[in-house]
């Protein structure tokens, strides 16, 4: 089972697709959660996810706007997608009928 931050990271990486790398994932998480995301948490979680086989990372090409430093590119694996999907289903399942879920639906309709 994934942790909350692991799920956020996987989802952000999946959304970014080919453009998923450290800084972009961090920005995506920060804009979605409206909370700051520390680089330490991001990179250690990325390593953990890679060790579990949920993501694959490699070093990209250096770019001038990064001071000639390469990016650490990220791709979500099939195993990672399954884990994220299972986590999402569990969250939806466990949230069914609770006050904030029903009020959210009411607001929508």
């Amino acid at each position, binding site marked *: 089972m994934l942790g909350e931050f692991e799920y956020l990271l996987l989802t952000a990486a999946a959304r970014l697709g080919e453009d998923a790398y450290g800084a972009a994932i*961090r920005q995506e998480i920060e804009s979605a959660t409206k909370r700051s995301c520390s680089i330490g948490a991001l990179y250690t979680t990325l390593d953990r996810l890679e060790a579990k086989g949920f993501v694959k990372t490699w070093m990209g090409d250096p770019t001038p706007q990064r001071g000639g430093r390469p990016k650490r590119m990220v791709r979500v694996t099939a195993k990672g997608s399954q884990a994220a999907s299972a986590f999402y289903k569990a969250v939806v399942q466990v949230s069914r009928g609770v006050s904030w879920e029903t009020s959210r639906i009411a607001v929508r309709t």
Partner: protein
Amino acid sequence: MNRIWWWLVEITSQALEPHERDAVCGDLAESGETAGVALRAMLGLVARRQAALWKDWRPWAVLILLTLPLGILLSVAARITTSLSATYGWLYVNNWDWALLRYAEFWYELRDSLAFVFVGCFSLACWSWTAGFVLGSVSRRLILANGVLFCLTLFLGGLLAAPGYLAYVFQDVPSPNSSNPVAALAVYRNVVPLILQVALAAAPFIWAMRKGADSRRLPALLRTLVWAAAIVTLLGVVIRDPGSGFWPGTYRHPAFWHILRRASQFIVCWPAVYLISDAIGHRWRRMHA
């Protein structure tokens, strides 16, 4: 000020693996973080990385078997050497008389004193360099943590003797140093030994840790020689005063210990030989590149 913060970020990032350092520094540059935020982010990542390494048993083994014993050993050795140097400094500074320069005996005495202090300081620097090299070689990824722990042990090692001194304070009895004119002056008792401890023990240790971490690139034969020299040097710290300190009872085999001490006195110079050969090799490679 900003430059200093970015320099600190760069220094802190040295504790990361090269590929991760590049990726993180690039992320910080791209997101346009201020130097303060960048430093906090870098410190956070380095702290997490260092903490994660301690989940393994090996760093604990290195800490218990190498870092702490070497720190305490060198703390004692540094205290003895720096106190002796401070005493010689006091002898000349506090009893200075220009008329002394006219006497040949003064110059003989000065030469012997300088040689004695130099050999002591040089040996201490070599011991510390060797300790740093060994620790850097065996725990490449833990250089930062081991460096901090070693320096803490080095400087706080003297506190192990503190309970003994507390007795003199609470029981109001004269301390053994109360009649010592050198120890009565804070400059010679604390300031000079502290400066020498930083210059001759901490600085060579930190420098050598970096060299030790790179030692994996050395050819196998050279690495074996370096390790043999390092082991004999560290043994030299332990046996430098057999029978009265670290090895009680060694007076039973004086000849053996005498030979070992003599050998270690020569081998202790190996860091100087290593650094000179390293510099020559570097220059030669650059010229032929």
